[in-house]
């Protein structure tokens, strides 16, 4: 009979190996899923994981990797800070939307100003503050009233989606748009665009994601606050005795992740999306939860995981257009990945022992 024995310390080998094992297991299970949908599983997997990187049209898909990867990495980085401390912000999608709305609001209010030195920094500031403020709602409620931040942050996603709809159809609608919903295209405004090099997929969101990686790495490797976050997650009582201020920690973790999500939303809406429309958000805020776990809540891991997850989005599009694979199949695939990761992770914290029945 198999039994589990707790390891004194998490296994380093398995910490690194479990995401890889999980990806492989997901590919096997995914092959089964694609076969069940009447596809040739090998062909589907090739379309998803090989075609965008090395196929004939990779010059078209590789920039997409930056476009889709940047928001995932930026949001997941923010989430990872809180997840390490046991503070669960799962409303990043809402913070992403509000960041985009605040940044776009600045851009549209200042239109047709040509002063990029003024407009774009102001947008960045507004985007970060918007996401920050939206995340402060669950933060302050938790600190002040002990309200569950998981549920509040999630409820605020639905509120943010309604606000977005109201803005896209009302206040921010393009006055020259012949009545179509959606705002002016910010990607085409020289003062407001977040593109740096559109043909290569390079935009300010990518820069922010990379700066974020360094920022979070330094936070956890060098800064006392990073140590306190880890301590609060692993040993809350010890953290309390050593003088960690839990309220400050909650506000910092939620605020930082909100600001990052807000910046991701702003750079998306002023670049790849261009306009504030009802459905400009595509659920990066939720997929980023998978990215954070797959990346082991470590900044470098998140960078890799975000790239992989961006690849599944792009590959999913490829498979959808060439094989007719339903778009939702990729969503199932991403969900399975998290399941397998959580299952394999038991080996990180526990040893499997073979035990004879009745011997102990």
């Amino acid at each position, binding site marked *: 009979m198999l039994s589990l024995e707790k390891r004194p310390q998490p296994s380093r080998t398995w910490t690194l190996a479990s995401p890889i094992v999980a990806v492989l297991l997901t590919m096997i299970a995914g092959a089964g899923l694609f076969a069940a949908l009447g596809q040739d599983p090998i062909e589907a997997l090739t379309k998803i994981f090989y075609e965008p990187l090395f196929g004939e049209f990779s010059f078209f898909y590789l920039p997409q990797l930056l476009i889709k990867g940047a928001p995932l990495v930026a949001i997941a980085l923010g989430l990872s800070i809180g997840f390490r401390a046991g503070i669960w912000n799962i409303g990043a999608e809402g913070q992403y939307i509000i960041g985009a709305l605040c940044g776009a609001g600045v851009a549209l209010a200042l239109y047709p100003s040509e002063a990029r030195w003024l407009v774009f920094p102001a947008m960045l500031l507004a985007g970060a503050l918007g996401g920050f403020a939206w995340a402060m709602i669950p933060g302050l409620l938790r600190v002040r*009233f002990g309200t569950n931040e998981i549920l509040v942050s999630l409820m605020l996603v639905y509120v943010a989606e309604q606000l977005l709809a109201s803005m896209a159809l009302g206040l921010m609608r393009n006055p020259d748009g012949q009545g179509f919903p959606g705002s002016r295209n910010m990607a085409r405004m020289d003062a407001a665009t977040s593109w740096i090099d559109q043909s290569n997929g390079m935009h300010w969101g990518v820069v922010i994601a990379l700066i974020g990686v360094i920022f979070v790495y330094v936070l956890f490797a060098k800064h006392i606050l990073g140590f306190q976050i880890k301590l609060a997650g692993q040993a809350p009582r010890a953290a309390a005795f050593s003088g960690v201020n839990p309220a400050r920690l909650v506000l910092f973790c939620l605020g930082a992740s909100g600001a990052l999500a807000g910046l991701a939303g702003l750079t998306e809406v002023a670049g790849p999306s261009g306009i504030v429309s009802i459905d400009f958000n595509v659920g990066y805020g939720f997929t980023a939860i998978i990215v954070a776990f797959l990346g082991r809540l470590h900044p470098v891991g998140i960078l890799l995981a975000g790239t992989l997850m961006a690849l599944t989005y792009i590959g999913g599009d490829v498979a959808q257009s060439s094989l007719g694979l339903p778009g*939702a199949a990729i969503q199932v695939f991403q969900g399975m990945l998290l*399941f397998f990761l959580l299952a394999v992770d038991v080996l990180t914290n526990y040893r499997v022992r073979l035990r004879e029945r009745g011997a102990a």
Partner: protein
Amino acid sequence: MDFGGVNPVLLLASLMVAATPIMLAAIGELVVERAGVLNLGVEGMMIVGSVLGFVAATGTDSAWVGFVVAALGGAGMAVLFGVLTQFFLSNQVATGLALTLFGLGLASLMGQGYLGIKAPSFPDWHIPVLGDIPVIGPIVFQHDPMVYVGLGIVAGVWWFLNRTRGGLILRAVGENHEAAHGLGYSVRRVRMLAIMFGGACAGLGGAYLSIVRVPTYAEGLTAGAGWIALAIVVFASWRPGRLLLGAYLFGGVTVLQLNLQAAGVAIPVEYLSMSPYIATILVLVIMSAGGAPGSLGKTFHASR
């Protein structure tokens, strides 16, 4: 008896219908949490239940078959969560989120051929005598059978938790799993059963949305109902009686805002649509007093 285009009797009557899906999902989650497990996958189980139930109901032209299949589907999803958290000892918050993400994908995959189809009819009961009472009759006694099944489940859960030995064991496991294990109860078995019950209830709630409430299948049909159910469990302080109150309160807000939308009140539709979510947050703020089971959300590993 009209107030600004809103008829209070009809309003109260539809309140009971609006509250039912959330009540079903919440009562299941209440049992799960009383056993010490936090399953954040309610939304995922609900939406899978809504699709499976709808597919089965349209396939067999029987709403009842749909409800049974939805309950089984929800329980099946819950088993996935149970195996991961109880046997693979995974983090309950992360696993619950995974269940929701997976469920949303699975539902939109399975529901593709069913968008916009109408569900088979599920006629209301007109309970004789009681249904004829003026005002109260139309409000309370003229609904479809699932409204009463839901109420029955809530009453049954109250009885089970407070009046039976099994309920006592379940609560012991939830309050202190180490002690319950020490007394010789199988923490895992109790929790697995509770998790499956929770999944079945969430599946029923989802199917109620797609078969009765809407009654057609649409993408993202649950729209956060599963999360609201989780909030109502907190509101109820983990007690079935208060859960009933919470579900009706929430149903009231939903119905009122829908009626105001229909009546063409001068508030933009989007702001009315966000009101149930804001109401949920307010409720969480007011009711964030304690009362949570002692072992809620903690992983149990019986070391020798």
